[in-house]
């Protein structure tokens, strides 16, 4: 009877200690989770900020001004544009004027490539 009591008491003690440890660990993990979530939120904010900055720096008006003023670039004009036409027979692109020959029905001509003078 006494022995059984001792065993039970020991078991109780162990359980109590286990409970304390597990509670402690639960709280620790919880704190870690909190921290990670806060970090995620911060990253999100940072990402938004960078995205905004990128957009602001890549603004068309800014690029346009830079290109015109600093790089002395000019808009595309017909005189300085070279069109590459895809020749389906030889499977190569050739310099040519579009519509010099009528386009074959149902075939989309290759997208024109602009050569814009930067100098």
């Amino acid at each position, binding site marked *: 009877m006494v022995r059984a009591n001792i065993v039970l008491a020991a078991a109780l003690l162990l359980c109590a200690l286990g409970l304390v440890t597990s509670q402690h660990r*639960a*709280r620790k993990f*919880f*704190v870690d989770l*909190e921290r990670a979530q806060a970090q995620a939120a911060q990253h999100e*904010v940072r990402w*938004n*900020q960078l*995205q*905004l900055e990128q*957009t*602001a720096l*890549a*603004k*068309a*008006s800014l690029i*346009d001004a830079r290109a015109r003023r600093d790089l002395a670039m000019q*808009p*595309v*004009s*017909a*005189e300085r*544009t070279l*069109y590459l036409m895809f020749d389906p027979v030889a499977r190569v692109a050739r310099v040519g*004027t*579009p*519509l*010099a020959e009528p386009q074959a029905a149902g075939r*989309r*001509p*290759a*997208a*024109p490539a*602009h050569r814009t003078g930067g100098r």
Partner: protein
Amino acid sequence: MARTSRRNVPFASNPLLRVKLPAYRSQLMMLLVAIAFVALGARAVWLQVFSQTFLQKQGEMRYAKTIELPASRGKILDRNGVVLASSLPARAVWAVPEEVEATPAQLAALSKLLGLSERELRRKLADEDRSFVYLKRQVDAEVAERVAALQIAGVHQQREYKRYYPQGETIAHVVGFTNVEDVGQEGIELARNPDLAGRSGSRRVIRDRLGRVIEDVEAVREPHNGRDLALSIDSKIQFLAFDALREAVRENKAKAGAAVVLDVHTGEILALANWPTYNPNQRGQLSGAQLRNRVITDTFEPGSTMKPFTIALALETGQVTPGTVIQTAPGRLTIGPNTIGDAHAYGPLTVEQIIQKSSNVGTAKIALNMPAQKMWEMYTALGLGQAPRIGFPGAVAGRVRPYRSWRPIEQATMSYGYGLSVSLLQLARAYTVFANDGELVPLSMFKVDGAPEGYRVIKTQTARAVRHMLEMAAGPGGTAPQAQISGYRVAGKTGTAHKRDGGRYVGKYVASFVGFAPASAPRVIVAVMIDEPSAGKYYGGLVSAPVFARIAGDTLRTLRVPPDAPLARLNVPAEPVKESL
């Protein structure tokens, strides 16, 4: 026995004990103790039963807390994912005036950080009666941190969001803006506020004595962030349109201008530009003129841009063919007491030439042979007189009077665009019937997947015939040779309308141009309107057509549309055909 015990234990036989105390004293004592116990019991019942909820709440307040989980406002993006509006966390700096204790140096630093004058700051803090005053709202997080570092007692901060518009004035009228409370006030921000705003959530937590969160008590109510919206706008095309428009307005010393670019097949609005405009990031002083989205909310008498619809109706009913000759000499036509006229007396013109030269007399003659009801039905089918449903605040319907009240002179003037009013957007949309082989396409401010169902207004061959006429009008022999683009065939119609002031037509004009390109397989519709050009030129062909050419050419190249015309030098006559007013 009793006597013996008394003798043996004398101390128990204290004579005091022999004194008989009155019974009521012990009873009174008993009663008092009993009352005390009852009081205790009652108090216990009071605390445990009646005040239970209150006390539990009080206890919980000391360890549990509900934390608000704010939802961030959704972003507004263009069709390619470029950010047009986005929110970042910011702080509101507030103070309790009577608690503020700051050295002059601290105040100076604070005023500098907040961008307030020191006098203004002192004035805000001087009002001791108020227990709360905002010093400044929407302070950048970085600045807020430096304010916090000053550690001034009585100055506090509160989290909030600040909205940024990186594209600024270019697209201000489409996107709109929010107020400091993050509620949409204009444009898409207003129209789609419920979608963008999101719903904030909350969580209930237990905190330890240091205020750290230890665990969640209940299930977390997750915040629902606002949805990101992808507009149909292409920010690159938007800039091209805006830039071209701005230059044209300046060059022509005009009061205002508007331009819109539509995708012919999907009905998406690729660009919508207005001048004057404003910077949504700095909204210090805004005037109504700056805020007005002229493309959608302004109506004007369209003038000659309406002629193609009259002609299309005549072709549709079989009344004329493109080759039918109409006598326009002597360049004027008298209807009752009124006379309408052309810029020149052209003599006999084919229907095609009537559009090419923009003859009022020719158009009116054709229109007068048609029943008014048919014309009204055509206008209504084109969406004139009804606000376009694009989910945008302030879209106006324009004005088309019921046909029963039309007098013959009105029917004649309406055929060439006077006596009815439209918005630029309606006009651009109406032109989709020509560009889209007779089908009217619903417009969209948001990105569309796949082409939407169109609504047939005219036959395919009618649309193609009118397209050919419009191409002539935008050619060397037409009213708008300056609309030509190298490498692409264009089609379009000029409009130059007198403005009305106090019921009378005055010497002010609205110069417009609506057209599409490439004419062989239209891809975009561009509509341009310049209000009150005052630098000498005022014809749509001279003022608005060059803007069209610039916007359409750049747009087609941006969209990588293959050219459908040789890259020859353009044939632009020095003096184009004068439009009839």
